[in-house]
Every structure is written in C-alpha cells, then in structure tokens.
C-alpha cells in the first residue's frame, strides 16, 4: 500500500488519533503509560492500534534498556499535508482571491459608471 494510504487509514480511527495526541503532549511513553489513557480498552487492543500507527510510520519504538518507548514521528503527516492538503488549500485560496478581484473590478466599474448615468 502507498504510504499515504497507510497514514489516512491510521488517522481514521479516534483511538489512534488519541494515542497520537497522547504522544504529542508527552513523547516517549511506554505501553503501560499509554494504556492508562484508555482504561476501557484491553492492553491487546491498545497494542493493535499502536501496530497500525507503527505500520504507517507515525509511531516509532525505541528500546531504552528493557523499556520500549513510543515516539511520535511527525514526518509522514507533514508529507501527506504537503502532497494532499496544501495543494487544495492553495487552490481554494487563489479562487477566493480571484473572486475578490472580480468583485472589486465590478464595483469599480459600477462606481465609474454612476457619474455618467447621474
């Protein structure tokens, strides 16, 4: 699967977004620490979500002695934003700017016409 698809799939789930938010506010948490944010979920459930995030490269694990810590990797989100979001945002903004230009032009034409008709 293309990397972008994995990122969108990973972000589609509210629990996984909450896991990313948890790492955003405090990076480098262990599985136990992350599980505490989701008392209603089993440890296995949290692990499954973490593995989807890891497949999308959004979460990186690193061992520190016997402890496995989880880190948020912001790179794939930035790439998806560059590839998919800024392009459309820019087009939308430029369309608004063009519309604005037309309205100003139209307004000026009307203004310049008015003295003649008066």
């Amino acid at each position: 699967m293309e990397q972008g698809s994995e990122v969108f799939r990973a972000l589609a789930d509210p629990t996984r977004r909450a896991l990313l938010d948890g790492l955003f506010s405090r990076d480098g948490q262990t599985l136990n620490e992350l599980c505490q944010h989701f008392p209603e979920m089993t440890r296995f459930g949290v692990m499954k979500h973490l593995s989807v995030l890891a497949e999308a490269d959004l979460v990186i694990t690193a061992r520190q002695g016997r402890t496995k810590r989880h880190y948020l990797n912001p790179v794939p989100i930035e790439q998806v934003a560059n590839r998919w979001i800024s392009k459309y945002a820019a087009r939308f903004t430029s369309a608004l700017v063009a519309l604005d230009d037309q309205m100003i032009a139209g307004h000026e034409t009307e203004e310049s016409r008015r003295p003649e008709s008066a």
Partner: protein
Amino acid sequence: MSLNAHVYQIYIAASPEQVWAAVTESEWTRRYFHTTSFVEPPQQGKTYRTVGVDGRPAIDGVIEEMQPPAGGSPGRFVQTWHTLYDAALEQEPPSRVEWTIENAGEGLTRVRLVHGNLDHSPLTWENVKDGWVWILDSMKTLLETGHPLPRVRDDQSLTVPVSS
C-alpha cells in the same frame, strides 16, 4: 536514549551511501540544510562547526561517532549539538543528534534521527521540533529529484500571492 528526545524516521529512495554523503558532506548539506556547511570535513572524536552561506556560525559540537554504512550494517553519525545561530539558544547546554542510516530494501534507505539530551534545553527542544521535519523532507526531495524543497516563506502558509 534520553526520554526527552525528538524521534524522526523517513524512507528515501537512494542508497545508504548516498544518504551518508548527504548528511556528512558540505556539498550536499548546503543544498538542503538552510545553506549550512561544515567548516572542516567532520571527523570522529573531533570538534565541528557549521556556517551558513553568509559565513554566519550555525552549530558547533563534537563528532562522537562516525561510522559509514558498510556491508549491511547501518551508518551512524552522532554529533553534539550546540546552537550558535540564536543568542538565547546559544546559552543552552549541548544536546545530541544521532543519525542512523540503514538499508531498507533495494534502492531504499531508512533514516532515523534522534535529537536527545534536551532535558536542559527547552528552547532548543521547541526550536528544532518542526525544523527537523522540514530538513529531512528537503533532504529526501533533493536525493530523489535533484532539487531541494523550495524555501518556505513565513507568510505562505495558507495564502498565495495575487498574480499581477
């Protein structure tokens, strides 16, 4: 690894040797790393210093480890990181940047970057957080297309210039 670290990972369609050159050789760094280059070629155990294209000092520190990728084992480039480009950041103690450059398949390299030892450098922690994302993306783009990312303007986030 320090708990207070930033961790980044990116895949680049290039060989580990090409990525290694991009990280350690000035001819490459000045094209994607805010124009900065090493004053002297970096050497393990020696101090280093980088400067911008205008000659202004950027970073200095010590190269703690410099092991190019070879025979399937990953490349390791570990540098202490003391900021010179900003007076407030300059007051903070050195942190540590660790590059690990590893083959991830035919023509594919995995780059992992850990910026750690930031426990006593809160300003640096905040300053480099988003900066590395851009540097890594720009390095990837340069290696894959031959051109770095265009420079980002502060006012460019959501608006486009009105064509005249």
